[in-house]
Structures are given as structure tokens and as C-alpha cells.
């Protein structure tokens, strides 16, 4: 029996060896049949390694930039849009627009001959017109609209930009003219119209889906006028678009656009390096130098539309005294922060608005780093030996990549002038809530602009209304400053508004409700074969106009 078993084993091994030899020798024959080496390279396909999954494809329902990249910036257009790579407002679905003299209404002349996407389940029978505009806005603003509740509708951006309070009514003057009537003059309104929530969707498609009893499909199978149309979304994996052949501004230079969803930044870089994607957002700051050294990759950079700040709670003593706030400003060594926290990828901030926004006042003089003067000023205000706290955010944001480190530096700087500060932190949601309630002495936070209008920084973060609801973390309501902002809202003359905002920035600096810390620099690694990619100041990723060599 023992011998038999051994023989069987020998035969088995010999057989296996023969099979392996045959398979290996016959490789040239079977390999091309079973594993053809060719990959069906589609003509002009651009792959973008995106950082996360979109929440959905109707931008008015959501608030995250990841969702906007996948929806409003690819599938849809707005009445007016930001010129790619700038904060300048240009015509899009509206050919022209004009504000009434009293600032209480805006009339848009719509573009003719704009085609909607044709999808698997929908073929448009008409071009874009005023009905689509009314549908897109009334859905968000009119609780009686049949689509208001569809997809669990909560229109947080529409709400957040105070549109319900602002818009009195929207009137269809004729098929190609729409008039927005406002409750009060609001110059930034036109900038709001270029925001993602203001994307225009097909009313015809929505009606059809409603009639079919599947209204949610209007959101799941989006139909817009944008440069790309949705082909497929595989949840958490891939979003596939193709160029909209009838795009009103000319067909995109790439035929297929693919978002390969890749949550980890190091993995994204590896993908970019080996050519699995062409563009990647949000590199690890620590990797920037390595990426720059790669000959296949260009690293684009631009200052972000954001500001990181430390707000003093002026409702608490001694921060109600502006000398204390000024002294604490002088004690912070911003250069050290830029080096240690931003690793050079930041620029010291002196104004509450970033330099890429119009009306940025370059004449503002920042508090120079001067511990001695700070100490003296603090003593003069009777706050020597102050004990306080610094709140540090638990998350990484573009305007503050490492709040804890930043807080530690400020803590050490203040210790030099005899101020003892304790660092406090909470879970992010809790942090936002508590700081909004004013539970802090000083708090680190920041802001990324929504619409490129100075009002979107100054009024939202420092106005008196914001002090009441808490978005103004300094809880600082200073009448001379607020009056300038309100006045600027009431005129649509850019020159006049610029003068008012420039003045407001000087008042802000003198009163020092914040220590303005930094504006970040955005890095965008792009492979060499990609042409004309431009960094979007709003933090979006836009592929219309981008080509492949």
C-alpha cells in the first residue's frame, strides 16, 4: 500500500509538471486569446481622481464641493457663471442682465438655442427657456411647488444664502425673459445667481418624471444643459460622463470624463504617478516637494478664496476692550505659523477677505509682530497676566491644515507676553455649535467664499445680523462698520461698492475683532499631457476647456 501511494504521488507530480510545461510553452498561443494585452483606449478620455463620492446629482439639494464638482460644474449651467479660473461674473444661460435703478429687481435675457442632454430615458422636445428657470428656483423656494418635497428636499444653500427672504417673486416676462423681484436691494444677488444651487434643470424632464410617478428620477438621472452628460455612476467607484454634443458654447475638448473616486491622498498620488489618472485634488502637504520633483507632473498653485482667523469673543471681558485685541494681534508671529502649519503653502492675511477678491485693500497695515509693544498695551488695558483659552478645530480645512499646531504656536507666543491660554477642542459638529453659541474666549475658524463677493465674507462673518445668529464668532457688532456694509449692499455700482469695502477693511483692522492669520495656497498636481487646466478660486474642479495632448 505504501508503495502504491508513492507511485500515485509520483504520477500526479509528473502530470502536473507536464501540464505546467505545456501551458508555459503554449503561452504565445493562448495569451492573446484569454488575456489580450490591448486596452480599449477611448479617444480623449480624461480621468480625474476625485476625493469622495457625490451625495447626489442635484446640486440644489446638497452643500459639499465634491457634489458640486460632479453635478453643477459638469452637468449644469447657471444664468450667469464665474469665468473659469476667476471670480469674474460672465454671461451663461442668460445673455445679458440688468438691475432696476432702485435695485429691487433684476431682469435676465435668456440665451436662445440651448440644448438639454438627451439621455437613455429622456429626449428633450424643446430648447431651454424661461420655464426651466422658474422650475429650478421655485422648486427650492415655493413650498407649494410639486417638486419641493421630492428627494427629501432641503435646500440648505438656497436657505443659507437667505434667498427665501430676498426673493419676492420670479416673473416670466416672456419665453426668453425672466425678472427676479427682490424684497430689498441686494447687490451680491447677481453673484448668488452664479452659485451651484442656482443650476438650471429641465422642467420638461421633471414634468415627465412626475407624470410617470417617479419624480425622484429627475434627480437621479439628471438632465441639464452643461458641457458633459452623465453616463453612469457606480456608487463610491466611478462617475462616467461624455461630452454634450450640442453644448451651446461648443463641444468639450475631451470626449469622455471619468471621476475615479479615491479617498486617500497618498493613493491618489500613486495613481497620478503611474498614469491611472490625469488630475488629482488635495495632495498631502508633505508630498508636495516629491510631486514637484516628478517630471511627468505639473503642480499648479493659486491662493485659495479663503481666510483662516482667530476670533476674539467681544462679549467676554477683557476682549470688549479693543486694546486687548490689538495687543494679542501684535503678539502672534504669523511668519512662524505660515512655516510650521502651512509648510509654506499659505500667505499671511491682513484683511478678512483674500487678495483674489475685488475691493481687497492692500493699503491696510497689519499689526507687526512686537511682543514688547503688545505687553505694554496689554498692561495699559489692565489685562496683564490674562488667563484665557484658544479653541482649535479638530479637522483639517483648506484655510487651516492643522489647527492644533496653530493653537500651540499662538499659545507659546502669548506666553511670551504673560498671557496664559488653554487649548480647547471638540468634535467638529459640537465645535461649530458651541462656538456659534459664544462659549469660547478665542476661537480658530475660517471661511471659504461662496460667490466671490466681498459681502460674502464681510457681512456673513462680521455683520451685526451674523453677531446675533453666531456665524460672527467674534460676536462683534460695530455700527460704523456695519453701516458701510449695508450701504454697499444697496448699490450695484462696483466702483462705489469697492470704495465702501476698502473703508470697511480699515475699520476692521483698527477694531481688531479677529487676528487674521492666513490665506491658504491650493496645489493641484496635473499630468503633463493635460492642457489648460485652471485652478478654480472657489475650490471647484472644472473640466470644460481642459484638453489632452
Amino acid at each position: 500500500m505504501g508503495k502504491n501511494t508513492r507511485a500515485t504521488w509520483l504520477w500526479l507530480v509528473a502530470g502536473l509538471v507536464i501540464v505546467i510545461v505545456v501551458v508555459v510553452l503554449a503561452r504565445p498561443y493562448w495569451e492573446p486569446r484569454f488575456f489580450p494585452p490591448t486596452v480599449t483606449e477611448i479617444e480623449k478620455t480624461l480621468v480625474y481622481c476625485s476625493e469622495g463620492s457625490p451625495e447626489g446629482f442635484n446640486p440644489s439639494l446638497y452643500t459639499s464641493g465634491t457634489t458640486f464638482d460632479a453635478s453643477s460644474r459638469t452637468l449644469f449651467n447657471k444664468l450667469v457663471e464665474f469665468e473659469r479660473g476667476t471670480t469674474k461674473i460672465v454671461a451663461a444661460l442668460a445673455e445679458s442682465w440688468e438691475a432696476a435703478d432702485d435695485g429691487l429687481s433684476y431682469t435676465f435675457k435668456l440665451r436662445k438655442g440651448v440644448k438639454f442632454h438627451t439621455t437613455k430615458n429622456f429626449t428633450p422636445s424643446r430648447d431651454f427657456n424661461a420655464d426651466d428657470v422658474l422650475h429650478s428656483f421655485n422648486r427650492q423656494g415655493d413650498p407649494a411647488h410639486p417638486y419641493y418635497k421630492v428627494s427629501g428636499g432641503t435646500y440648505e444653500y438656497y436657505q443659507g444664502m437667505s434667498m427665501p427672504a430676498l426673493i419676492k417673486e420670479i416673473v416670466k416676462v416672456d419665453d426668453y425673459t425672466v425678472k427676479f423681484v427682490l424684497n430689498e436691494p441686494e447687490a451680491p444677488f447677481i453673484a448668488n445667481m452664479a452659485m451651484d444651487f442656482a443650476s438650471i434643470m429641465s422642467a420638461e424632464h421633471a414634468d415627465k418624471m412626475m407624470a410617470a410617478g417617479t419624480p425622484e428620477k429627475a434627480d437621479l438621472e439628471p438632465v441639464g444643459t452643461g458641457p458633459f452628460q452623465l453616463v453612469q455612476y457606480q456608487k463610491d467607484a466611478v462617475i462616467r460622463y461624455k461630452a454634450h454634443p450640442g453644448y451651446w458654447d461648443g463641444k468639450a475638448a475631451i470626449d469622455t470624463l471619468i471621476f475615479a473616486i479615491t479617498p486617500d491622498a497618498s493613493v491618489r498620488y500613486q495613481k497620478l504617478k503611474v498614469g491611472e489618472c490625469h488630475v488629482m485634488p488635495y495632495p498631502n502637504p508633505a508630498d508636495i516637494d516629491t510631486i514637484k520633483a516628478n517630471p511627468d507632473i505639473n503642480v499648479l498653485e493659486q491662493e485659495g478664496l479663503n481666510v483662516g482667523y482667530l476670533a476674539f469673543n467681544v462679549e467676554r471681558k477683557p476682549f470688549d476692550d479693543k486694546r486687548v485685541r490689538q495687543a494679542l494681534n501684535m503678539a502672534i508671529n504669523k511668519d512662524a505659523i505660515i512655516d510650521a502649519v502651512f509648510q509654506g503653502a499659505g500667505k499671511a492675511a491682513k484683511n478678512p477677505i483674500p487678495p483674489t477678491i475685488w475691493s481687497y485693500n492692500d493699503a491696510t497695515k497689519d499689526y507687526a509682530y512686537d511682543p514688547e509693544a503688545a505687553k505694554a498695551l496689554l498692561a495699559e488695558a489692565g489685562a496683564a497676566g490674562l488667563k484665557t483659552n484658544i479653541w482649535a478645530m479638530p479637522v483639517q480645512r483648506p484655510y487651516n491644515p492643522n489647527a492644533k499646531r496653530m493653537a500651540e504656536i499662538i499659545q507659546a507666543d502669548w506666553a511670551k507676553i504673560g498671557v496664559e491660554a488653554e487649548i480647547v477642542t471638540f468634535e467638529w459638529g459640537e465645535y461649530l455649535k458651541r462656538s456659534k453659541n459664544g462659549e469660547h474666549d478665542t476661537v480658530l475658524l475660517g471661511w471659504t467664499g461662496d460667490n466671490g463677493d466681498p459681502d460674502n465674507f464681510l457681512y456673513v462673518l462680521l455683520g451685526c445680523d451674523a453677531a446675533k445668529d453666531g456665524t460672527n464668532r467674534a460676536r462683534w457688532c460695530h455700527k460704523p462698520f456695519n453701516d458701510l456694509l449695508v450701504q454697499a449692499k444697496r448699490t450695484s455700482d462696483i466702483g462705489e461698492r469697492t470704495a465702501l469695502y476698502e473703508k470697511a477693511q480699515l475699520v476692521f483692522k483698527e477694531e481688531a475683532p479677529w487676528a487674521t492669520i492666513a490665506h491658504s495656497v491650493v496645489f493641484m498636481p496635473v499630468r503633463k499631457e493635460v492642457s489648460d487646466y485652471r485652478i478654480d478660486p472657489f475650490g471647484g474642479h472644472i473640466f470644460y476647456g481642459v484638453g489632452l495632448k
Partner: protein
Amino acid sequence: MGGEVPAHPALRPFPRQTLFRFFITRFGMVVPTFFGVTVVAFFLIRLIPGDPIELLVGERGIAPERHAYLLKEFGYDRPLWQQYLGFVHNLLNGDFGTSIVSREPVLSEFLTLFPATIELSFMALFFALAIGLPVGILAAVRRGTVFDHTVMGISLTGYSMPIFWWGLLLIILFSGTLGWTPVSGRISVLYYIEPTTGFMLIDSLLIDEPGAFKSALRHLILPTIVLGTIPLAVIARQTRSAMLEVLGEDYIRTAHAKGLAPMRIIGIHALRNALIPVITTIGLQTGVLLAGAILTETIFAWPGVGNWLINSIYRRDYPSVQGGILLVACIVITVNLLVDLAYGLINPRIRHAGKS
């Protein structure tokens, strides 16, 4: 049973219990376990501070009235016990809730993503078994040799391997530097795959695209290794100790004395008996695999339920988290139940218990 092999409850002799009663007992234990899991799934995520609505709006903030309105809209304004009862009530009606982020039913999101996790877990388990079993057997047979010590040393390292670091290391070496494997994803994005079964290995064969299957296979290599590392170490060690135990038994000595070929003794007489505790280990490894999948999927951008659960937790998407945890727990319970049942069938001490 003694030595390094833990005594599984099912291993203890069941002198007066029939196989049928054994099954009933095991089923009976599932019901309270299930309810225990609903409690954990529901309350655990709520113990983490963070308001889903505050997270949704970020720095922008939200008016208190609007906040209250949204809480009501999502049903979070009710007392916690009422929410819990509503959750269980819906569960019993087969409703796992609707995501507050994507507004889609949790069950359908889960089912869309689950095949990717199964595919990866199966491959990882297969990888772990294909290497773990032979290595464990060899180590037992050559007990005390350099081979044995090396294998056990490596498996201890494998067992304590931080998955995230391990995954990144492999990607940087094999994909980034050597270019042997793709970096991440399930298949090259250049293939247009319409999910039919959800299993990429099958779907890639169904489409008539040359090279698609190969691409899917290549994409599986690194995640399989990363996810399979810990189970591999466990199985190798478990197999070794079970084999050692069996090899010391009297009947093995008898077999040797009878002059049976060593291969036959090890392959048939010893292995069969040693496999019994190993099968239990495999059942227990399902939990480990699903937990490991969370990290593996995140790093390899693998669109499975682990990746999805992590995102849901970050967004405080309560319905997705509690529904997802519950579904995963159900799967682990089911697999362990099946293993126990299979065990009852395989283990003669249980199979024949009623007759004796």
C-alpha cells in the same frame, strides 16, 4: 481539547442532545443576539458627539428655527427611546431606513455595494486558506525546525500588521515603483461595465471586452493580500497547533506503526481531524474580514460596504450607520450559525451524540 486550541462550545460533548436539538438551540440564540445588535447599532452612533445637521452645514451655520425644522423632518426631535422603537418597528417591516445624505434606502445602497465586499473577502479568505493551511501543516510536521520558527515568526508579524500602513506600503512598492499591479479600484476605468451581478470577476466576463477579466483580476491582487494577511496568520497558527495536537494522538502512532506512508497519515488521518477547529476559526474570521474590509476598502478605493460605513460615520448619517452595522452583524451571525451547523454535521461526536 487542550493546548493552544480554544475549546469551542460546539466541541464539548453533547451526551443527551440530538442533532435536531442542537440546531434549535443555536437558532434560539440568534434571536436575542439580533436584538442586542439593534440596541448597539442604534445607540452606539448616538454616543459619538456631533449633530448631523451641524456637520451638513459646516462653517456656514444654520438658523435655530431651520435646525429645529430639519430635526423634525428627520425624526430626531423625538425622545431617543421612541426613535429606537420606531427603528425596530421599521426593521420588523423590512425597512432599514433612508440615508439622510443620499436620501436613498439604506438596504438598496447596502445591496449595491455588498457584492464588492463579498468578492474581496472571498478572495482574501481563499488566499489565507491556500497559503495558511499548507504552511500550518508543514510547520507542525517539521516542528522545532528553522522553517517552523520562521513561519510562526512571520505569522505573528502578519497578525499584528497595521492594515493601512501595510496597504500603502504594497501600493507604493508594487504599483508606484515596480508598476506590476494597478494602484486602486476594481477594474481599469477605461472599461465600461454595467453591473449585472455586482461581482466584477463575473461582470467582466459577461461584457465582450478583451482584457476586462484580466484587469479585474489584477486589481484584486493587492487588496486580497492586504485583507488576507491577518486571517492567513491566524489560520496558519491554528492549523499548526491543531495538527500538533492530532499528531500526538494514539491512532497516529498506530498508523505509523502499521507502516502507512507519512503523506497518507498527515493528509488523511491527521488533517481531517485537525480541520475541525480550523473550520470554526474560518467562521470567526468573517468578522475579522468585514472589519478589515473597512480599512482595506478605504485605502484601495474599493466600493464596498466598509468604505461606505466609514463615510456614513463621518457624516453622522444615522440611518446608514445603524442599518449598515445591523446588516453586517446579521451576516456575521448567519455565517457563524452556518459554521456551527456544518460543524455539527462534520463532528462525529455531535453527529452521533443522539445514537449513543
